[in-house]
């Protein structure tokens, strides 16, 4: 992240100087800051709601039941999660939310999953293999129904907006599997 951020900033500033976009660049820095505040405020709301629901799930013991149910499935991908660990529930619910294209629900669930996975982290501040697997699954994003895309296509008169559902499913399934293979390859190399 450090290298990437450094490169992005340096390249941007050099480009801004040579293409005469200096004013736009400076404005964009403050735009970025504003966008971060807006997104954070939005996240504050939905994350707090999810945290509230999670607490009920925990207090009633339901979260451990869900975890137990999906244990065999999640265990294949995440090797070092102990039985009945709450992270299993959060991961499962996050994947389901992504599957249905419920981005609003997926983000707080993902945050929860990361926090649960961090409980198992021996070396805080350094990413664990489980966290990497989880993030890669999220950025590759398996999607069943891309509602926003279908909505836009329908609005502008596409003759069959639903036709994208199957190709998207195929594309995301292949790309998620490839992403996991790439991760596995890197894991071998950088052991």
């Amino acid at each position, binding site marked *: 992240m450090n290298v990437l951020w450094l490169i992005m900033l340096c390249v941007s500033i050099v*480009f801004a100087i040579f293409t005469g976009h200096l004013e736009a660049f400076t404005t964009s820095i403050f735009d970025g800051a504003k966008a971060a505040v807006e997104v954070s405020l939005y996240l504050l709301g939905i994350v707090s709601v999810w945290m509230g629901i999670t607490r009920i799930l925990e207090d009633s013991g339901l979260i451990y039941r869900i975890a137990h149910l999906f244990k065999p499935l999640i265990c294949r991908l995440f090797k070092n999660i102990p039985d009945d660990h709450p992270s299993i529930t959060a991961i499962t619910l996050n994947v389901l939310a992504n599957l249905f294209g419920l981005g609003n629900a997926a983000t707080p669930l993902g945050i929860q999953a990361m926090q649960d996975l961090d409980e198992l982290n021996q070396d*805080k501040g350094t990413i664990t293999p489980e966290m990497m697997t989880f*993030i890669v699954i999220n950025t590759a994003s398996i999607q069943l129904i891309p509602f926003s895309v279908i909505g836009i296509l329908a609005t502008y008169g596409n003759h069959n907006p639903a036709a994208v559902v199957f190709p998207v499913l195929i594309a995301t399934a292949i790309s998620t599997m490839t992403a996991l293979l790439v991760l596995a390859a890197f894991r071998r190399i950088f052991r």
Partner: protein
Amino acid sequence: MIKSIEYISLLIIPLFILFTVLYGTLKKVRVYDSFVAGAKEGPAIILKIFPYLLTIFVAIKGFQASGAFDYLRDAFYGVFSFLHIPIEAVSMAIIKPLSGSASTALFVDIVKTTGPDSMATHMSAIIMGSAETTFYVLAVYLGAVSIKKTRYLVPVCLISDFIGILVAVMVTRWFF
């Protein structure tokens, strides 16, 4: 078909909440107090995420505004036009990992300018549906647990994005 699936997806969250509170009540949990106690954790988490989000947003917005983004797109254009991939889809492939709202705006623009049934529209739609806002996910998820050492995660995500977009292009060719 889509309508009924859409309805089911609308039902999921409300039904999940209903089930949670009813089950909690059945197990003698004071659901109101539990919810409040849980919600109290929200602000602390967001406070942790905020600096990461700000850092990545500043870099992304700056990158777009400086003209570097356009240059990157033009550089890719040569390669992609050779493969007969519409320039619009190339823009989408570059912008989708960077910004969710910008990619939605771009998609609407592509549909308007190239028509709702064009190859560019279909290809962009598949990319839009199959790629994720990688940098946003990285900032938010890593920020939530204050991860500083990401090891090989970022290269893996970038390679996966690239492969994902190639897959999306091939799948589009195959279906449309």
